[in-house]
């Protein structure tokens, strides 16, 4: 009959395995096909149930089936589906493993398979929460493995709470140090510029964003989302005022009365722009709004670094044509001066595109005639004045969505979101012969000083107009200023915490997700320059005299090293305080015993001093030792304080013993 302790142990081990499966399964949910997901869930659930019931399959059968699964994998895999097939196979092997009667090595294999699953799943997620979950799971697996090993190897049936606590702390300390040390490996592990063979492929998930066809009112859906759309970080920090930045994503050129669409397909080749570093600034955009590949850009953009992966259309819209990734990053070089227009010649054939008008009602046509000015600028001014004079207001809800939404907007509702204002403006301009287009993008950003980057949220989505006047496309934003209210930072604690989390997320993206060969080289270069002085610097430092060394001048790493060294010394003194600050008579006794030990007489635990001396064969050594011990006993056993005379006598005995030759 099994003992109670071992029953509990088995149950705890099974429970550990069960809990460990939660994370991989949660992460797999949106990664593998639903049918396979639920099948795996059922299969593993069944295996766990049989395990709890004590029903197991023979090992040879499990091994054979596992072998078949692996064969199937090799027969069906190719470079396109490699990742997917790998994950499926590992999942099936995991299920098989759970059907076996488990020994220690089986638990190790189960956790290893879970680890491999997580490695596979890591290609599908980039979010910070996944990274934290990964860390948690690694720690959990570490503890679980150690627990299995401890109870089996140590043949432990019962564990006390203090024992459990110490195990948790000590092993936790090991895992914590593992995490810290892994940072160094992470930084130093070799990297390549481009993948050798591309096996990873992330499915292009449709998220809210800009598509080539958008209906009036659709912007509201984008604006409901408060998730980050992208982040922009300049090397120089804050260059533009956050509320003034317009990010172009897509340009719509064709309107059918209800929907805007994009017909422009001409790609403009990137030219070898000559730029002057002084006037421009490098920035990096991190985005996960992967909707048909259109990327946020700025009016101040000069060029992008990833010319091979990003194509530029003739209307300056950028699109990613490289391998889709969940977290996209690209570098931009921009002018530092604020720009509100795009200088461009417009050929006649292109003009027609931007003068396209759908079938419209008479009232709109009459309105356009009424607003016509002597010059294009005057016409534009009249249109903008019309909105303000007629009391048009900004609204996100209750938008005109009928058969003639624009007509309703202009004459009945007189309220709408940015799309209505932009559509109406563009239409009125076109009716007056001024080429115009609607631009979809984002307006404004939040500048986070802590991380030195601009954050743009989905609800900053905006549309405005570009009108071609006097040889350039001018930025016109007809939407009332009220729409800017979303940009005002909330000062509530919750909002501040959200921003803090956002900054942590940004650092995670910058230092972990975005860490690549280039950054590695830069970091190693910085490390090298910190350690090795250049010629000129060395001479200057040598000239400084010693007494003028100021701790504050030292580089940070030196300060850290000094602090840690001092800490180490302090800890050593603390650890050995009993030895260092021992009473003199104790030190003498210690010396006496070490002299005897060198001569082959080691004092055993609980052995008296007189008993020890009895063992000494050398009569002279025995005599001297006895003398020492008698003096010591005189004070010690009578609880007398060791006076100067006593200590002196002891010292003399020790010297005599020391003089005796070692045999």
């Amino acid at each position, binding site marked *: 009959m099994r003992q109670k302790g071992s029953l509990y142990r088995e149950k705890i081990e099974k429970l550990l395995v069960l809990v460990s499966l939660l994370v991989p399964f949660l992460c797999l949910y949106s990664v593998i096909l639903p049918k396979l997901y639920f099948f795996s869930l059922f299969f593993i659930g069944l295996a766990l149930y049989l395990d709890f019931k004590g029903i197991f399959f023979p090992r040879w059968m499990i091994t054979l089936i596992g072998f078949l699964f692996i064969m199937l994998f090799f027969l069906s895999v190719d470079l396109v589906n490699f990742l997917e097939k790998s994950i499926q196979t590992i999942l099936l092997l995991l299920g098989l493993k759970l059907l076996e009667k488990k020994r*220690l090595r089986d638990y*190790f294999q189960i956790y290893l398979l879970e*680890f*491999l699953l*997580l*490695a596979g799943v*890591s*290609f599908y997620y980039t979010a910070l929460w*996944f*990274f934290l979950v*990964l860390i948690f799971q*690694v720690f959990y697996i*570490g503890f679980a*493995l*150690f627990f299995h*090993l*401890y109870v089996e*190897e*140590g*043949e*432990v049936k019962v564990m006390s709470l203090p*024992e459990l606590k*110490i*195990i948790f702390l*000590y*092993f936790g300390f*090991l*895992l914590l*140090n*593992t*995490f810290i*040390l*892994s*940072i*160094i*490996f*992470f930084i130093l*592990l*070799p*990297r*390549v510029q*481009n*993948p*050798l*063979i*591309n*096996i*990873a492929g992330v499915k292009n998930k449709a998220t809210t964003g800009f598509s080539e066809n958008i209906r009036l009112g659709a912007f509201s859906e984008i604006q409901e989302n408060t998730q980050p759309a992208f982040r922009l970080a300049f090397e120089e920090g804050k260059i533009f005022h956050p509320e003034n930045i317009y990010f172009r994503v897509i340009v719509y050129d064709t309107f059918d009365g209800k929907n805007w669409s994009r017909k422009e397909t001409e790609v403009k080749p990137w030219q070898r722009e000559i730029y002057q570093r002084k006037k421009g600034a490098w920035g990096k955009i991190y985005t996960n709004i992967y909707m048909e590949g259109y990327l946020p850009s700025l009016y101040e953009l000069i060029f992008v670094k990833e010319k091979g992966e990003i194509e530029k259309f003739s209307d300056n819209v950028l699109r990613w044509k490289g391998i889709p990734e969940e977290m996209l990053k690209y570098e931009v070089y921009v002018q530092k001066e604020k720009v509100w227009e795009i200088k461009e010649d417009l050929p006649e054939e292109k003009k027609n595109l931007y003068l396209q008008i759908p079938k419209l009602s008479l009232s709109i046509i009459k309105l356009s005639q009424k607003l016509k000015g002597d010059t294009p600028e005057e016409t534009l001014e009249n249109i903008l004045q019309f909105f303000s004079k007629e009391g048009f207001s900004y609204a996100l809800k209750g938008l005109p969505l009928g058969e003639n939404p624009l007509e309703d907007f202009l004459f009945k509702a007189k309220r709408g979101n940015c799309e209505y204002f932009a559509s109406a403006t563009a239409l009125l301009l076109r009716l007056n012969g001024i080429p115009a287009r609607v631009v979809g993008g984002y307006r404004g950003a939040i500048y986070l000083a802590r991380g030195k980057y601009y954050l743009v949220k989905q609800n900053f989505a905006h549309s405005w107009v570009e009108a071609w006047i006097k040889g350039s496309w001018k930025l016109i934003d007809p939407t009332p200023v009220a729409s800017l209210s979303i940009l005002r930072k909330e000062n509530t604690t919750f909002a501040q915490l959200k921003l803090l989390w956002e900054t942590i997320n940004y650092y995670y993206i910058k230092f*972990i*997700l*975005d*860490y*690549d060969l280039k950054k590695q080289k830069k970091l190693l270069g910085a490390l090298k320059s910190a350690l090795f002085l250049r010629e000129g610097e060395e001479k200057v430092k040598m000239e400084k005299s010693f007494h003028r060394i100021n701790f504050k001048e030292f580089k940070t790493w030196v300060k850290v090293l000094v602090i840690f060294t001092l800490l180490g010394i302090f800890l050593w003194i603390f*650890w050995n305080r009993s030895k260092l600050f021992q009473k003199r008579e104790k030190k003498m006794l210690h010396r006496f015993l070490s002299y005897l030990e060198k001569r082959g007489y080691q004092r*055993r*635990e609980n052995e008296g001093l*007189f*008993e020890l001396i*009895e063992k000494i064969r050398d009569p002279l050594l025995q005599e001297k030792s006895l003398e020492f011990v008698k003096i010591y006993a005189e004070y010690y056993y*009578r609880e007398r304080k060791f006076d100067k005379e006593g200590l002196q006598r002891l010292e003399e005995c020790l010297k005599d013993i020391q003089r005796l030759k070692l045999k």
Partner: protein
Amino acid sequence: MGVSAVNTGNNFLYFLVSLLLSFMWLSGLFARLNLKGLTIEIYPPKEAYARKKNFLRVRIKKNFFWGFLYRVKIILKGRLSSEELFFKIAFLSGEKEISLTYIPENRGIYRIESFIISSIFPMALFEKKKSIKREIKFIVFPEPKGCNYYERDARRVKRRGKEGLVLGTEEFDSISEYIAGVPRKFIHWKALAKWDELKRKVYLEGEFPGKMIDPLKLPYSDLEEKLSCATYLVLKAILQGEAVGLKLGNIKYAPQRGEIHKIKLLTALALYETEGEPL
């Protein structure tokens, strides 16, 4: 996984590989720390008999931090055989004492020349071993086997009318200087309290002349049987408070009482015709 990380540039994979590498490295370090600061003391039994269950006391101490998953192997070498004693300690905080049982096959000197402490802490990726050389010798006395020759002697003495003292008691005679190694029951505690000096008690020798045992004359063909019987007789005599002596070939041990004398006689029996040197 490392190759996949380099191949794909996936930083999560790099992170996982980094974790694995750092764990492997730190495992080695912690495994070494696990074996550092360990002291082992082995206390052989004061009296051990062949073919009887004996206990070897082992005290293991970790001087700093804690220790986990130890396997300790002690190699016991006897005159004709060798044995391995093995035990495990799952968790060690400070000091722990373990009693190992063993049954030596033969009499004679047994040696512990070394012992091996190993551990698979922290994750059974490898086993770290530490071999400690320590020479510990102890004597295993012959197996005491019951035999009747003592009673015959007792009956003979009674017939002569020399009943003498009641067996097992002695009369207090005087106080003498303390000698190191004297059993505690012979220390005069009153003298210590009164004069602050260690003194020992001296008892009258019993009028009983004591027994002389000559194992070689015992009626057994096998030497080991003779020695086993002699061991039994010595033990019985000492237990009954009789003075007992031994004659082994040309060596004579005069009859005396007491524990020390018993050990002396048993040692002589244990080492008779063995290659072992006395301890």
